């Protein structure tokens, strides 16, 4: 009797997963514990584990296909065994198997934080064309003959379309629902003669799972959490000086001698965690019936990745030194860009930091990562005229830090106290090194 392997629910918010890559093909022997496929959730690309021994007798979906959570992706049985019919989007009533075995439970995932990204070393390409439906398994585009015919008539480029049919096949519906793209230059008589030449590329970009998830989390946060906003100006000179000293001494050392390099982000993360020790009330979350104050700082920070952003979490950040935080952040950023973060590494944040300083943004306010009490928005350190203690106007280095707070959980005073504490630490950064 064949066992069906269903699309696992790999995060709280996951409703569909995209089968990115098959790791086992039909006919391959599989054993309990083998990974059979890679699945892109709304958060990350994860591997799906097989809990049976036997042969993978059927793949119910092709690479690139979106599969609803709970729908079968594969069947494992004995060699030569007939695979059971897979359910479709319109499952037969007889097949509503009530107790399909859920693959290993995975820790719940924090929703994608609606925050700005940490500096990417190279900016993500903005207008990358959406992948062709079958590009992951080759360059051939799978489209029905009818879809091809209609696409040709309408002058549509099939490679810009996402197929909704079995195995990602582009169907008639997909073509009919598509808007003509500027890529296809249809010069048939049906085209309006006086259409102005387009100077920019028109694109219909499919909404990825990640964008859907970001959208959902952001709308949820902005509609449910009443945001208030505070801003404080910090003298950025001491921090810049400290960073220059540290990097000046450490950057050229080999790693085994303690060589490393700190980003502004590393320093602000450390400072943010340190400031929580002084104002623990910032480290709260809205739980509906209760407000929870957390004993540890699980510090999330935004990382921009291709067409989205994720918020990896540094756990127990208040207990970690600058070196530890910097190293951990580097690893997490690298994983994030490779879409290799596990749900666990993105869940359970208690406070979030976002940074747009590297883009020259002087000040801004992020949207609160759902259930956090606050999000910090770090701006660029810019040269500005400031009035010093002698009432002289001098050139200062001004760093503006914004705080968006959830008024259900904390009031303005808590946010203000926290920003004040953060300012003190950043302006005397040696205090956070001890």
């Amino acid at each position, binding site marked *: 009797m064949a066992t069906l392997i269903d699309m696992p629910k790999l995060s709280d918010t996951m409703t569909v997963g995209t089968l990115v890559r098959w790791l086992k093909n039909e006919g391959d022997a599989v054993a309990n514990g083998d990974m059979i496929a890679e699945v892109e959730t709304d958060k990350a690309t994860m591997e799906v584990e097989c809990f049976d021994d036997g042969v993978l007798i059927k793949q119910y979906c092709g690479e690139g296909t979106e599969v609803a959570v709970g729908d079968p992706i594969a069947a494992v049985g004995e060699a030569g065994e007939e695979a059971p*019919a897979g359910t*479709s*989007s*319109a499952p*037969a*009533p*007889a097949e509503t198997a009530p107790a399909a075995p859920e693959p290993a439970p995975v820790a719940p995932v924090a929703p994608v934080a609606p925050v700005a990204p940490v500096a990417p070393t190279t900016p993500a390409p903005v207008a990358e064309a959406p992948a062709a439906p079958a590009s992951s398994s080759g360059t051939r585009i799978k489209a*029905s*003959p*009818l*879809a*091809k*015919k209609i696409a040709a008539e309408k002058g549509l480029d099939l490679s810009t379309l996402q197929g909704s*049919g*079995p*195995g990602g*096949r582009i*169907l*008639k519906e997909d073509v009919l629902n598509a808007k003509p793209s500027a890529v296809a230059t249809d010069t048939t008589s049906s085209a309006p003669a006086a259409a102005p030449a387009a100077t920019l590329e028109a694109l219909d970009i499919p909404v990825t799972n990640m964008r859907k998830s970001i959208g959902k989390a952001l709308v949820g946060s902005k509609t449910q959490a009443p945001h208030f906003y505070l801003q404080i100006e910090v003298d950025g000179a001491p921090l810049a000086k400290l960073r220059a000293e540290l990097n000046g001494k450490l950057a050229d050392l080999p790693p085994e001698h303690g060589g490393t390099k700190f980003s502004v982000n590393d320093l602000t993360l450390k400072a943010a965690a340190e400031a929580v020790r002084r104002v623990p009330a910032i480290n709260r979350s809205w739980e509906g019936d209760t407000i929870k104050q957390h004993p540890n700082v699980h510090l999330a920070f935004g990382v921009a990745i291709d067409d989205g952003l994720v918020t990896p979490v540094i756990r127990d950040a208040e207990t970690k030194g600058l070196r530890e935080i910097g190293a951990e952040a580097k690893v997490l950023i690298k994983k994030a860009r490779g879409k290799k973060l596990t749900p666990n590494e993105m869940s359970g944040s208690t406070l979030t930091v976002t940074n747009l300083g590297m883009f020259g943004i002087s000040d801004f306010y992020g949207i609160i990562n759902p259930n956090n009490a606050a999000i910090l928005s770090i701006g660029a350190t810019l040269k500005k005229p400031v009035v010093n203690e002698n009432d002289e106007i001098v050139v200062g280095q001004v760093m503006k830090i914004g705080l968006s707070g959830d008024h259900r959980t904390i009031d303005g005073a808590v946010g203000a106290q926290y920003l004040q504490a953060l300012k003190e630490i950043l302006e005397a950064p040696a205090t956070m090194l001890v």
Partner: protein
Amino acid sequence: MPLITYREAIKQALDEEIQRDENVCIMGEEVAQYNGAYKVTEGLWEKHGDKRLIDTPISEAAFSGMAIGASMLGIRPVVEMMFMSFSYVAIDQLFNNASFCRYMSGGLMNVPIVVRGPANGGTNVGATHSHTPENMVANHPGLKVVCPSNAYDAKGLMKAAIRDNDPVFVMENTLLYGEKWEVPEEEYIVELGVANILKEGTDLTIVSHGRCAMLSLEAAKTLEEAHGISVEVVDLRSIRPLDEETILNSVKKTGRALLVEENKPYCGVDAQISHLIQLKAFDYLDAPVHRVSAIDAPQIYAKPLEDWQIPNQERIIAGALKIFG
């Protein structure tokens, strides 16, 4: 309109044609005095006598050959096969001689016979009594074959078959003999080679024939109600000549085709129709053509297995859903 059985509809056709044309006669095993093995000819011997209803020896080869010879001289025999499977006993007469007489005589001789009898499984009669050889018949240029799915078609097609000047096989179904449909009292003919759209739809065309067309119609209702798939059901009625136009028009409209038949799949009727669709409606297809046919094995004697071997509603519904991924 009176509700009559499929069996009664065939009998009416035979009765009316015997009365209409003095050359029409019925021959076969037990067709006269015993009223037919499946009682299709019940009462006809009493009514029309020995000249028109002829009990034959138990030799399909002999009485088929006799019918062919008689037809060359102007008689229009209707030959009953107790089971269409028994036509295999007369394969030289029916598939070799009857089919090619017109061609080999340069058009001087034709063979206006009807070969009729049940051709179906599902009745637990074993591998040698359950053949559905419409594909075999259709594979012989010169032969014609129809598979009525209901009483109305059975009567109309039988009359058309008797009046046709070439050998026509009428594939009946023992599971349908007792089923009732509305059949008008006034005379009508169902022309050979004209398919019937049993139900209109927009998302999927099911092409079927014989009893499977009725199963498909029921399945179509479930697909529509439970799955929101609008299904058009095309009942071929006639396998050869084939109504290509109706099939193609329907597939061009829906973009998807499921072919359902009780034939074994290998070189079955639907293999031919599948070819037709891909050849002439390729640019209209939104999905590959799928088939539901008998499972490719000798007819299974165990009844529960046989019930699954030949298409049933569950298999048709599953087959349709598969097209939608």
